[in-house]
């Protein structure tokens, strides 16, 4: 593996907190919740009737004819990718398409298209199924849509590892540049699964919060009153670029994507390893690949979904990975405000980690009113980060036993 530096030169997002990255970041710093009561008839019978839907409908932003050929997950992905591409100054740059790649993840893919077409099939027969159903529902649809939009010919990829997918896409993007396969990679994740079936299925796993009367207070990582995660939707994209390519075009740099750790528990399909060994190894490997010591870290954006077991297991893993250095690390949970974006979570939270380094401030974890003693310094208000060279890490874990940690450093 080469030691090519990989830089973050563009960001884009559409989230429950805002239709772009700046509005999302402002809302995170302000401690706003994007969770609300779901105003769909189908939600009335569900145990969890709350969710974090995007603040701006993608169809309000995209060209109508283009949008109607895309599943909602692809629509969200495209909105985030176009923002990131413009933000990076690449929309009018002269790029070699054979050096441009995409790694855009999704946890579940085009589930809304799949289910809507199944309804058509049952109610009206096979001739009423859309000829666009397959390209819309396939999990690589969002990545392919971005690839078409930015003319990516070095390869278009879709890592799928449930709620670790977004981070796994970032890890792959770093690798693609270090392997020499691309100079520029649009990486991230998207999810659009706020729908009756996924909501019912997560409900049957007893994974979702049922704090229906207080939606904004439902996602409360590490709080003793937490009772499950809140399902969110959205997309986030980072533009990763080799140092040489970024320098040659004098690109603005947010941070360095310094390394990633990807591991698997091999313990259980849905439960995390109770000792958090796989998560610990992911963090340790990310630090090593980034050339960092635990003492270099000042901030961790935790996976912290607000489930009873998961938050505690992660805290244990963080303490094991960092040792005494954990005392100097400010931890936060983006999901306290956005809910859980599944395959987009790692991407949105990596974006927040990058901006925390860039602006040197950590957004709060909201709703932490009765904190469980997990031995972490969790931000409940904005926290300033030190001047000088600093590093931060974002954790994502997924059903299937997937663990992905990504380490970023200031520039």
């Amino acid at each position, binding site marked *: 593996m080469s030691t090519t530096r990989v830089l973050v030169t563009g960001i884009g997002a559409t989230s429950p907190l805002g239709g772009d990255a700046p509005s999302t970041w402002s809302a995170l710093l302000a401690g706003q919740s994007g969770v609300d009561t779901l105003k769909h008839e189908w939600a009335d019978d569900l145990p969890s009737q709350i969710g974090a839907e995007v603040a701006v409908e993608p169809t309000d932003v995209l*060209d109508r*004819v283009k949008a*109607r050929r895309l599943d909602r997950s692809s629509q969200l992905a495209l909105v985030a990718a176009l923002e990131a591409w413009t933000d990076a100054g690449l929309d009018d740059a002269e790029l070699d398409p054979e050096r441009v790649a995409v790694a855009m993840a999704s946890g579940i893919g085009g589930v809304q298209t799949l289910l809507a077409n199944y309804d058509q099939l049952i109610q009206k027969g096979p*001739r*009423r199924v859309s*000829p666009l159903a397959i390209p819309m529902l396939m999990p690589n649809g969002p990545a392919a849509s971005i690839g078409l939009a930015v003319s990516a010919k070095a390869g278009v990829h879709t890592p799928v590892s449930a709620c670790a997918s977004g981070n796994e896409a970032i890890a792959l993007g770093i690798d693609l540049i270090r392997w020499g396969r691309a100079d520029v990679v649009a990486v991230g994740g998207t999810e659009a699964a706020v729908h009756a079936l996924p909501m019912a299925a997560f409900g049957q796993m007893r994974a979702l919060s049922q704090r229906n009367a207080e939606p904004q207070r439902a996602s409360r990582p590490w709080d003793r009153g937490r009772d499950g995660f809140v399902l969110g939707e959205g997309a986030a994209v980072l533009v990763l670029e080799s140092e040489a390519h970024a320098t040659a075009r004098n690109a603005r740099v947010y941070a360095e994507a310094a390394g990633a750790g990807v591991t698997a528990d091999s313990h259980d399909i849905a439960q995390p390893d109770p000792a958090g060994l796989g998560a610990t190894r992911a963090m340790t490997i990310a630090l090593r690949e980034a050339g960092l010591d635990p003492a270099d870290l000042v901030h961790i954006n935790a996976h912290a979904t607000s489930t009873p077991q998961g938050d505690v297991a992660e805290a244990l893993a963080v303490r094991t990975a960092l040792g005494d250095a954990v005392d100097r690390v400010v931890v936060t949970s983006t999901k306290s405000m956005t809910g859980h974006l599944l395959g987009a979570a790692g991407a949105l939270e990596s974006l927040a980690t990058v901006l925390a380094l860039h602006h040197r401030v950590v957004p709060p974890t909201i709703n932490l009113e009765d904190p469980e003693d997990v031995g972490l310094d969790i931000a409940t208000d904005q926290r300033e980060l030190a001047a000088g060279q600093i590093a931060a890490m974002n954790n994502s874990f997924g059903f299937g036993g997937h663990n992905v940690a990504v380490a970023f450093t200031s520039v």
Partner: protein
Amino acid sequence: MADTSEIQAELATIVEEVAGVPASTVQPDKEFISDLDVDSLSMVEIVVAAEEKFGVRIPDDEVKNLRTVGDAVAYIQSAQAA
């Protein structure tokens, strides 16, 4: 049963919805593929929408003969009469 101009107008609305071209440009002499930016999947969408709208069946073997908007209007009218 609809007359030619009604079929023409409703088909134009379908083509606008699917392909994004203004309904006013969907004239009888226009070819779906070369003039109206309709690709093969969009053509299937248009056929499915037209079948539902006009209560007719347009077999796949016929679709390849429907080169222009006028061809489609004529086929739909004859199918309705049958």
